[in-house]
């Protein structure tokens, strides 16, 4: 068992989930309610990471994260760290490829909130922020839980993009999925099996907790 890889994977998955959810809420709300030009285009862009092969995404990200790219150079100047082959780059890539997993369940959830519920809150004097906190998020809770679980589990399992952008640096960018690949390459099937089983257990626990959380919501109604 590569405990460094496990900790890194969990750290990456947690950071991605916590950073991505607020961002996804900001993207999903206008997609659910507002009518604007180019909405179809934004919808398509949000879905794109789901459709492109991970290695292709990884290849382009590697190019745009490099120290000679504007983004890579800017990050280096700002933080003194490179984006490629680092946790920073891994996190940024992870945020981008998880956008559809976080945005789509939230968008569906916000779409299912009747417009009158928000209008009633406004007429009761709730500010837009209070309406978000006290009306929209509680009603969108199943979508929020789905988004969190999908993002977390998908980040744990991501392989192609992580390998392209992060490389395979022990303790810095070697996640559990990559460690499994490494162990198989090294004919250490016992370790690979152990880590694979762990990922299966985490996925099952995540799906189970999602079921539990949303069932609780059903009772509240």
């Amino acid at each position: 068992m590569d405990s460094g890889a496990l900790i890194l994977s969990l750290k990456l998955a947690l950071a991605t989930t916590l950073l991505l959810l607020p961002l996804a809420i900001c993207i999903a709300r206008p997609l659910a309610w507002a009518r604007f030009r180019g909405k179809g285009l934004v919808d398509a862009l949000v879905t794109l990471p789901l459709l492109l092969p991970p290695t292709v995404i990884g290849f382009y990200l590697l190019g745009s994260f490099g120290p000679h790219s504007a983004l890579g150079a800017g990050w280096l100047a700002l933080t003194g760290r490179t984006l490629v082959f680092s946790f920073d780059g891994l996190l940024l890539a992870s945020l981008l490829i998880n956008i559809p997993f976080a945005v789509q369940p939230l968008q569906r959830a916000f779409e299912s909130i009747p417009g009158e519920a928000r209008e009633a809150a406004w007429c009761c004097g709730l500010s837009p922020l209070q309406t978000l906190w006290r009306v929209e998020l509680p009603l969108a809770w199943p979508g929020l839980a789905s988004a969190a679980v999908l993002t977390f589990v998908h980040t744990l399992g991501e392989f192609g993009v992580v390998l392209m952008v992060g490389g395979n640096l022990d303790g810095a960018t070697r996640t559990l999925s990559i460690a499994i690949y490494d162990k198989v390459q090294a004919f250490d099937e016992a370790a690979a099996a152990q880590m694979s089983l762990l990922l299966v257990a985490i996925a099952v626990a995540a799906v189970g907790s999602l079921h539990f959380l949303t069932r609780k919501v059903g009772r509240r109604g």
Partner: protein
Amino acid sequence: MAERADRADRADGLRVLLQQQAPIPLACQFDCAPGELVALVGPSGSGKTTVLRCIAGLVHAQKGHIRCGEASWFDAAARHVRPPQQRRVGFVFQHYALLPHLSALENVALGLGELPPVARLERAAEWLARVHLAGLEQRKPAALSGGQQQRVALARALARATASNNSGVLLLDEPFAAVDQVTRGKLRTELARLRHELDIPMVLVTHDLDEARQLADRMVVLHRGSSLQEGTPEQLLTQPRNPAVARLMGLTNLFSGVVAGNAATPQLHWNGRRLSIVDFCGFAPGDAVSWVIPPEGVLLHRPDRPSQGDAENPVTGTLRETLRLGSFTQVTLEIFGEPQPLTFAVSTRAIERNGLAPGSIASATLLAQRIHLMPA
């Protein structure tokens, strides 16, 4: 009534003027004094709900203004728009819009944000008790019947509208449309009682004329976004300004004629008949007019016992239809020589006593003082 007129003189109450061409044409103006209930009536698609949503600040008209008391809520010319949060509107939505994740008590307390948390719940419980829901405070909306949900929605709107020294407005959008008929009658009676205890302007949107008549002090008739006429239910039902209003008010005895006679004996020529009328209503002899008579203005003659009043504007014809509506029966009389029938209500007992049935010959009086003239 005098008390109410005094209040209207003060600079309080709700004043609404809305105009726009698109997306929904609007040309609507009315006032509503504190303690007064104004009903906006009209067919579906006449813009009633849009007017209400403009008052709440959920949509904005292109031109016009909305003032509540001293405060300006909307002024298109000054580009001034207050958001719904700053308008103190108690809005009863057609489908109630209760928040499903909050209890009845929390739903009502939602509109009492300015109060400290404990006072908020106390006041919410008081309002629930006033709409006869004491004991159901902790229920979620899904565990309440349609009528109970409607009461929670009303309590929430009233709590919000009255929270700050009665400075708010109560808006009701078809509030009884989604409940069964028995519950509807009960809720209506409750609101009719409750509204007299309230000192805020109330605006009711409905397509149900009976509802408007029971609840409203004044009615505004809307058609395609335009206010056609404003007045008490009695005025609108007996003196509609024009045939369009008469039709929207459900008046079916609508005919055309020509003014005749002189100031001493004003008359109306109607397809060869001469009807006596009370006055010219501003028309001159020779003018072609439309005229209307409400069902209450038509009296069926008793063939067994003619009375003196029968001499007033008598008409005779064949009964075409008798529609029994409980203690009253709606009668359709096909007058000889007149293509359009007359409809009116007669007590069911009178129908039975006189043995009247479709096909019978019957006579009726058109009361001169109930005949109302309008532009053709």
